[in-house]
């Protein structure tokens, strides 16, 4: 495991002043993918932006983790729908 690719969940949670259960719960929801090595939990660095976005929803907007899960999944669907819409719009220009 390369050190720069993972951050310890404990360290991450201390930095954000949150309980580690927040991250483990997000992991249970399938929204983040933590790994366990030598009895410690680690979060891939590439998941940090997404994880911090979920934390902002949780802390800034007082949304509980179940709500964060619903919002995150809906946002993913909106993004997919937007990408699909862009493709279709571009295709539509063929017939204009």
């Amino acid at each position, binding site marked *: 495991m390369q050190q720069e690719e993972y951050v310890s969940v404990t360290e991450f949670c201390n930095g954000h002043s949150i309980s580690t259960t927040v991250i483990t719960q997000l992991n249970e929801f399938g929204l983040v993918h933590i790994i366990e090595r030598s009895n410690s939990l680690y979060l891939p660095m590439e998941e940090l932006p997404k994880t911090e976005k979920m934390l902002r929803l949780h802390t800034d907007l007082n*949304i509980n983790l179940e709500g964060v899960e619903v919002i995150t999944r809906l946002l993913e669907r909106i993004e997919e729908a937007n990408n699909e819409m862009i493709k279709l719009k571009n295709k539509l220009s063929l017939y204009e």
Partner: protein
Amino acid sequence: MDYIDYYKVLGITKSASEKDIKKAYRKMARKYHPDVNPNDATAEKKFKEINEANEVLGDPEKRKKYDQYGKDWMHAEQFEKAKAQQRSSRGSTGQGARQDFGGGDFSDFFESMFGGSGGFSQGGYSAGGGRQTRFRGQDLNAELRLNLRDAYKTQKQTLTVNGKNIRLTIPAGIENGQTIKIPGHGGVGRNGGPKGDLYLKFIIDNNTSFKRDGNNLYKDVEVDLYTAILGGEITVDTFDGKAKLKIKPETQTGTKVKLKGKGFPIYKKEGQYGDLYITYNIQTPTNLSDKEKELFKQLASFKN
């Protein structure tokens, strides 16, 4: 510089209590927060407005000053002097755990009345309550307009975002509406947190005679009736040159031919291209001479 009615921004009356303000702010923040409105510049602007309104109305000192001077905020300096005298005989203002989302980038009106943005880092979010949380800066969104010819070749551009120059290499084949992430060029992090990212959306204007669908290009080409019937050779424009095409005898209008590898570059696959599809439009001759009409009549009589 215009006066800003912060009460109106939050949709509350002047008699609103601290609780009302907090409630109104939370409600609007949930609606316009950038994380729930990605790539939405209108929501981002609205979020900044409500942040600014909350920064003023959610702070008893600032609210008092705002209420007292309102449209005459230009005279607020006198208030500042009086306040400085009072401060010497008073303790902390005791704001408690008022929550804010940072935001920065306040209006000229705000800067004029309250000076700097009170130590808020631009774009950062805080969890409030005085905790020294480290947060990544806000993600920023911007649009870049290119024409189709520009998008055909990899090019370097320098953008200015929030006063900072960003040198950018745009790979050939970028799609209209495509968004790319430029890590570390978003808002400044809070309490030593890393910078956010910049999301750049490309708008590709097509002012060429080609139509594009992904990596493929489409073009209609006119073919005269005689070449279509008897066959022949024509020269067509490709996106970056010309190509000779053989027309088979008795070619029908709407016939489509594929020129392999003459389409648009495939994004991030150097040297690979899509295809160019040429559709033939057979042109019926006009302004026929008497002789031509006679010959067509002869041809028609063969078919009868």
